[in-house]
C-alpha cells in the first residue's frame, strides 16, 4: 500500500481529484448559477463551462484555489452570456408539523406565502439574491460566500442586509 503524504496537495489534473471537486462543489455551484440566471439549462451550461475550463487550466489552478476559480468563471460567464430570467424556487414549509397547522386554510396560506416570497426574491438585485440564497438555501457562512464571490465579508453583510430590508418591505402586510 502506498504511503500518502498528507502534506501533498492533490493535483487537479488527476481525474480522481477532478471528480472529487465535481462531487463536492457541483451542486452548490449549480445553485449559485441558478440564483443568478434563474434558468436550469443555463445553470447547467455555466457549470459545465466552469468545470471544462478548470480541466483545461488544471496545471495552473491549485487544489486550494479550484473552488474560487469555479465560482469566478461561472460569474464571469454569466455576466458575459446569460440573459437574466426569474428565479423559480420551490417552497416547502419550515413550520413544525403540528396537527393544527395542517388545515386546508393553513396549507393554502403557506402556498400563497411561498409564491409571494419567491416574487419578492426576484425583485432583489442579482448580487443581493445570490448572497442571500447561498446563506439561506445552501447554508453557507458569510466567510465562505465572501471567498466564493471574491468579495469581503463586510460586502456580504451589506448585500444580505439590503436583501432582508427589501424582502421585508415587499412582504409587509402578509401576516405571517
Amino acid at each position, binding site marked *: 500500500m502506498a504511503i500518502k503524504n498528507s502534506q501533498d496537495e492533490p493535483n487537479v489534473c488527476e481525474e480522481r481529484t477532478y471528480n472529487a471537486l*465535481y462531487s463536492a462543489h*457541483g*451542486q452548490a455551484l*449549480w*445553485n449559485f448559477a*441558478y*440564483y443568478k440566471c434563474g434558468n*436550469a439549462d443555463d*445553470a*447547467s451550461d455555466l*457549470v*459545465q463551462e466552469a*468545470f*471544462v475550463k478548470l*480541466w*483545461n487550466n488544471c496545471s495552473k489552478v491549485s487544489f486550494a484555489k479550484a473552488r474560487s476559480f469555479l465560482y469566478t468563471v461561472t460569474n464571469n460567464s454569466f455576466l458575459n452570456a446569460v440573459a437574466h430570467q426569474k428565479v*423559480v*424556487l*420551490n*417552497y*416547502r*414549509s*419550515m413550520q413544525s408539523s403540528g396537527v393544527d397547522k395542517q388545515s386546508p386554510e393553513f396549507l393554502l396560506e403557506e402556498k400563497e*406565502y*411561498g409564491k409571494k*416570497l*419567491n416574487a419578492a*426574491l426576484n425583485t432583489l438585485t442579482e448580487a443581493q439574491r445570490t448572497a*442571500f*440564497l447561498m*446563506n*439561506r*438555501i445552501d*447554508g453557507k*457562512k*458569510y466567510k465562505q460566500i465572501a471567498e466564493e464571490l471574491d468579495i469581503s465579508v463586510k460586502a456580504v*453583510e451589506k448585500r*444580505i*442586509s439590503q436583501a*432582508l*430590508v427589501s*424582502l*421585508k418591505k415587499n*412582504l*409587509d402586510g402578509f401576516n*405571517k
Partner: protein
Amino acid sequence: MNKQELLHKWMNDELTGAEESALREDPEMRAMMEIAVQTRGMEAPEFPKDAVWKNIQQLNKPTKVRTLQPLKFIVRIAAVFAIVAFSYVFWQGLDTDVNTAIAEKTEIILPDQSEVALNANSFLTYNQQDWKDARTLRLDGEAYFKVAKGSAFVVETDLGDVTVLGTQFNVFARENLLKVSCFEGVVSVSLDQEVITLRAGDALELETGKTVKNLTTSLSAPRWLQDESSFNNAPLTQVLNELEHYYNIQLEVSDIDLEKRFTGSFTHQDLDIALQSICNPLQMTYSVLDKNKVVLNEAE
C-alpha cells in the same frame, strides 16, 4: 453589539438561544428573521448532476484522451494500406497486357514459369490470377512459347486456338494470317472447322478464306529469335508487312508486282542489309528517303 451585527451572527448560526430571544423582541428584527427562516425552506430546482457530468467529460475528451491522436494517425495509415491492398487485389484481377513496339522484342515469364518470347509489334494478354486455373492467353502478333508441363496451355488468336500440353512452339497471328510451328512436343490447333495436330517439326499456315497449308520446319526454334525473318515461297506483301514490324519505315511500292514469291530471310538489325536481302533476289532496287520512307522499284 448592535442589532444588525447580531442579526448577521444569527444568520451564521452563531447566536445563543438567549441572544436570539432578545433579538426577537424587536419587531423589525423578528420580521426579517421570519423571512430568513421561511427562505431556508426554499429549494432550487433539481441539479441534473449526472447529465452535466457526462457533458463535462464529453467536452474534456479531446484534451483528456491524448492517446486518441496517435490512434487516429494509425487508422489513417491503415486506411492507406487498405486502399493499396485493395487496388493491388483489384489490379491482380485485371488482365496483364504486354505490348511490344516496332523493332522491340521482349521475354515474359508466366506464373507457371512458362516462357514467352514476344516478337516486335505484338500484343499479348493474360490473367495472372486465373493462370493457375486456366493457362489461357490471347495473342495478336507473333510469339514463341516454351511451355512448362501442366494442364492445357491455350493461345487464342483470331483465326483459331492453339492448345498444347508442354512444348515449344511458335504462333504467328497477324491480320488475316496464322502460322503455327511446333518445335517440340505436340500442339493442337483448333480452327473453326477442324482440329489439326502438329508434332515436332510440323508447321501450318492459314490465311483467311484459304485452305490450310501443311508445312514442315527443320529449325529447333523460330528464326526471329535469332533476329531474322525467313520465308519460303511467300508473297511479297507478306514479306514487306513483316519488314515493317522490325523497322519503323513507310514502304512505297508503285510499279511492283506484290504477288512475287520470295524465299529467303532478312535480318532485324540492319535496314540496308535487310532491304538488299529482299530486293536483290527479286530484281528490285530501293532508295531510303528521309522520314524513314523507303521506295521500291523494279530494276531497269
